[in-house]
């Protein structure tokens, strides 16, 4: 086992702001959309909190984008070699679906330049470069419908923008459970979580 520095401070700050915002936005989002489920807050309060954390998430996303683009680390999200990605994804799927159960080692070993296994890479690529922009843009448009009326019209109308926001919400909400579960699949159940606080992670040596 060896310790490597996997998560720089900027990434860790971004991650935890992201995590808190996600949870608050999910709860308030549910409160806004489903008033019939247990009421934690008034609709107006839920909207106000949702708007506040929505903008925090927007700024956090900008922080993430600027950091990853300017450090060039954005490439860790992008499968540059399709063949390698495809083979790696199959191996990783086999690991999660079979190897892990019989005690095989993880075929992917994280490094600062190759942090994600191919399945993580494709999932985070979709989340960070497709779903998050969709969610943030649709959220901002819905925040002030009159101000962004032209944009909303361009995207197909109010109902369409709202549907996009809700569909992405369902996927991100569902992914949250998978994401949290995957954090427990380190060398120890808390290894990945600790690493997101300290930046250092213990990984198996090859």
């Amino acid at each position, binding site marked *: 086992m060896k310790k490597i520095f996997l998560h720089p401070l900027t990434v860790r700050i971004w991650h935890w702001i992201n995590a808190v915002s996600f949870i608050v936005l999910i709860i308030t989002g549910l409160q*806004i*959309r*489903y*008033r*019939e489920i247990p009421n934690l807050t*008034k*609709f*107006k309060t839920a*909207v*106000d909190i949702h*708007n506040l954390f929505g903008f925090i998430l927007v700024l956090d996303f900008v922080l993430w984008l600027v950091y990853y683009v300017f450090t060039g680390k954005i490439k860790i999200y992008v499968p540059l070699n399709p063949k390698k990605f495809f083979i790696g994804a199959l191996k990783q799927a086999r690991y*999660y679906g079979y190897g*892990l*159960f*019989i*005690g095989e080692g993880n075929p992917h070993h994280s490094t600062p330049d190759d942090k994600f296994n191919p399945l993580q890479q494709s999932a985070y690529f979709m989340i960070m470069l497709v779903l998050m922009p969709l969610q943030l843009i649709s959220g901002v448009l*819905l925040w*002030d*419908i*009159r101000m962004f009326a032209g944009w909303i019209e361009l995207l*197909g*109308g*109010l*109902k*369409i923008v*709202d*549907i996009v926001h*809700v*569909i992405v*919400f*369902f*996927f991100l*909400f*569902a*992914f*949250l*459970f*998978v994401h*949290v*579960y995957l954090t427990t699949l380190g060398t120890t159940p808390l290894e990945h979580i600790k690493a997101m606080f300290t930046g250092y992670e213990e990984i198996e040596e090859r």
Partner: protein
Amino acid sequence: MHKKDLRKAAGEKVLHTLSFLIFSITSAYCLVFPGLSGAQKLPVLENAGACMGCHASKDLAMVFKNKEKMSVFIAQGDFRKTAHGALSCTDCHQQVSLEAHPGRVVESRSVFAKESSGACRNCHSDSQLKAKANHAYVAEKTDAPLCTECHGAHNVMRIPQWKSSLRGKEYCLTCHRRNISKTFGSGEKLSLLIDPSNLASSAHNKHDCSDCHTEYTGDSHPVKTFAGGREHSIALSGICRKCHEGKFTLLKGSIHYNLSFQVGETLVSRGNPKAPVCTDCHGFHTVGPKAAYETVSGIPCRKCHEDIFRIYAKSVHGMARAKGEHKAPLCASCHFAHEINFTAMTDKIKGVCLGCHKGVEGLHKKWLPNTELHLSVIACAACHAPTSEKGIYLQLIDQKTGKPFTHGQILQLLGTTSEELSARLDTHGLGLDSYQLSYIIKQLNERGADAKVTYLGQMDVNKYSEAHQLSLKKNAIRECESCHSKGSKFFKRVTLAVIKTEGGMERYPVNPDVLTSIISTFSSRQFYVIGGTRIAFLDLAGIFVVFCGILLPIAHVTIRVFTAPLRKARKSEETGRGKSK
């Protein structure tokens, strides 16, 4: 009987006796000494001296059975100047004789007048009475006024002399202050009685009758016929336009005009036959000053809209007005006086509300997210008349122009009639469903060149009368949950509202399910209320996705638990292999 009345009766009896004595003595004197009598000096009034012996007294009066009293004083000098100045008293009062005068006591003044008027016909024949058309019209009526009612009794003037002595409306009022009337072809009766006091207090009190009734002069009095009172009112309201062209221009675009005035050159009544014309609100001769209409009691609208007025009277505005708050609006403050128009699906009323309640947008912004949006799609009354029933009104909008399609345009584009369209839009009797809604848009898009059609939704009260029951600000609906929750009662009634070109609105009931159906996602893509009009299918799909997200880790963990012995065995094997190395 009181002592006072007894004294009065006794006095009158004495006066009568004295009158009779004077009449008898004077008559006898005239007969015995004819050369000394007044009749000799004035041969035209041969026996007037006898009569005037008593009737020159201003105190002489006639008392009828019903206790009415009438002066029988004759101003001899004036009488000489009348048309009948050459006649003697008995030419008309043929029944009066010295032997029996004053004779029997007549029942009442009106009976006496009727009996006396009969004397006119001694000289004035039927053909003479009917020589003038209007005189004939009046004279032939069963309830025609008595001759004396128009011409007087002892002051009958020659017509040219009479006309020249009267000015302006006095000339007309000679007849029209009488209880005369006209009967229309429909049998309706129109009173032609003009109350001079109404004229005096009207805004038109400086005008002569002929300023409005231009065809009527001292020499001309055409007889007009109308089918009924409605036609008469419409025709006479046309007169107002001569001076009030500005008001007429405003009126021309109004819903009242479209329902009641002329189309082209033809006078017709469309829609509501009670829709008002000028005289229905302002009256014929009682046109009041503007201030008269600015009082609760002066509102003419309530004649037809009494139900709405009752609601208004209980509203915050009505109560404030009743308490004397002059800034509180009356009907015309919001609807305007002449340019009254259909307000549903327009911003007109909202503009009026915001005109008085300045800064209201800022006040709403303090607590209402997306204030402009809320204010643009929700009618003020929807929240400020909290007890009113609400509904959603969908409107077909041409996105190219941003204007709603009118009923006429839709019929033209679809090549159908109003009845066919109604039948087509509600084939199941449950209101338009999502498929029908989408189909209409598809057809309109196909036939309306490249017009992009969509539905815009607004929330308003269901009954427009309820829009008047505005309440105090503290009672207004401000709970977001009222709308932003599934099953909100405000979304139970949906209507496709189509404005008619001539005013008014055609309403087609819509099945409320269209607001939550995935099928109408694109057709009603501009109307969406977060939480309130959730698409049911989307919710189900979302629950499935989230359920998968939860199930996946649970399934994986479960398999991990069951396969733990495999990993343990493998680890032991690897450990053992390591040790053996």
